């Protein structure tokens, strides 16, 4: 079951700093929506996501999930990180069921279902160190889903993976969040990732971090990156980002795969 998220006028200043990292952010995310947060490095995207997860408390304002104020982490709003951070002394199954273990529950059928969902049924009893990066991230996804969260928070979860694995996992996570009826918020540097996974993309500016614009992505899932509609959506997002935040530098906002090749060919033609 998904939950709505309400971010009520969050301002945050880190200890020892005078300028706020986030300034007066107000945002409503309806239940079941998939939202991407994009912005330059240091604009506060990850800080905002940590607040949604209850891993950081804002100096002003609050986050509400399903009407409840978020004051601490909970298995109901789970976060996936850039690194899978699996526990190497546990096998795949033990990693996935960890959240249930913490809750004093056992549900082998659910773990079997999740293993199947992420395509790792054959690897259930293997040690996680023997898995590839993509497989490890799949285990992390299954682990996040095991506690039946209402909200899935993703902090650049695929940025360390190769382009093919990244695209596959983007599609899988978009499919799974739809199938499991989850509200999803993803922080990314990757324009393609935002277009491939989100219903709505929020653009953040830096110093201080503010949400300065948004773009709807009205494309059906699964999204085919080779289609003209995908390129158009990406184009619109790039243009909006340019107009709101300034020139896009490749190191700050990344394009991947086919869309980048399309862009390069356009530049050459010009």
């Amino acid at each position, binding site marked *: 079951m998904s939950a709505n998220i309400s971010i009520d006028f969050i301002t945050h200043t880190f200890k020892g700093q005078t300028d706020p990292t986030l300034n007066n952010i107000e945002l409503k995310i309806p239940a079941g929506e998939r939202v991407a947060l994009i912005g330059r490095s240091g604009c506060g995207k990850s800080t905002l996501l940590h607040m949604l*997860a209850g*891993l950081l408390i804002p100096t002003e304002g609050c986050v509400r999930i399903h009407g409840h104020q978020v004051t601490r*982490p*909970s*298995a109901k709003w*789970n*976060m996936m*990180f850039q*690194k899978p*951070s699996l*526990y*190497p*002394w*546990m096998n795949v199954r033990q990693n996935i069921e*960890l*959240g249930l*273990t*913490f*809750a004093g529950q056992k549900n082998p059928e659910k773990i079997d279902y999740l293993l199947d969902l992420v395509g790792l049924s054959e690897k259930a009893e293997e*040690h996680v*160190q*023997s898995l590839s990066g993509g497989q490890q991230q799949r285990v992390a996804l299954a*682990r996040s889903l095991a*506690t039946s969260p209402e909200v899935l928070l993703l902090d650049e979860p695929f940025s360390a993976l190769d382009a093919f694995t990244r695209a596959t996992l983007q599609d899988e996570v978009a499919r799974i969040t739809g199938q499991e009826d989850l509200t999803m918020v993803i922080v990314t540097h990757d324009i393609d990732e935002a277009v491939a996974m989100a219903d709505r993309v929020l653009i953040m500016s830096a110093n201080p971090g503010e949400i300065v614009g948004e773009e709807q992505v009205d494309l059906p899932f699964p999204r085919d990156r080779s289609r003209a509609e995908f390129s158009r959506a990406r184009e619109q997002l790039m243009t909006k980002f340019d107009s709101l935040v300034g020139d896009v530098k490749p190191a700050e906002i990344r394009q991947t795969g086919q869309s980048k090749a399309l862009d390069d060919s356009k530049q050459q033609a010009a």
Partner: protein
Amino acid sequence: MSATPASLNMNTAREGGFDWKAFGMSAWRGIGYPVIGIGVMLALWWLGGWAIASNPDTESFADFAPAPAFSRLLELTANGYVWEASAPSLARIGLGLLWAVVIGVPVGVAVGLYASVREISHVPFQFLRMISPLAWMPIAVLAFATWDGAIVFLIAVAAIWPVLFSTAQGVRRIDPLWFKVAKNLGADGLQMLRRIILPAIGQDIFAGIRLAVGVAWIVLVPAEYLGVTSGLGYAINDARDTLEYDTLAAMVVVIGVIGFFLDGICVKLIKKFSWHNQD
């Protein structure tokens, strides 16, 4: 072209048949090298014994040599004296190490986990660990009602530091994301300790215990010179007083053998609790 039987045999060997060459190399490394090491050690001991026996000034110590020592060792093993002397020492070592672990691991976790505890404890711990455990002897004798209590205290004082510092170092090396993920999955403090921290540092704790066993074993012999009438230290002291140098050398061998096996147990435990590159 059809394959000859010889080439078939070679192919079978390559494709998974028994690899005698690898087996031979592995056996040589596993048995041959240690045998060479032991041989060199015995040769040096024998040379020392021969030098002592050849010198009129030291010939009364000739029983230190390997032959009388091993002959006496067999005798002492057969009549149960070796076990009689070893059992109390092992009990004292076990108790001392137990105290070192019971105190060292939780304190080490706190030192590794909290910067404030680390900073507060730094000077006192560095100061205390530099004091020779044997320097505590007079205080131990005053503080404990029994000799056994005093010896266990001395062993614990010696063994606690490797356990504590190794544990603290292990905690500090834990990936901070592991804490974040566990919190995110709903772990409380006790679950964090039991499911994340202790398994993550298991190998560090046992590495600390391994060092502690070495230190404790060194402290044991002089500690057992204190009032007690049992143990390997007492046996050595007694053999010296009664000029039974073959017994003295035999007990030294016993101490070395037991220490070697205790170290082997620690190495096995480190491997068991090590999660690096598990396949």
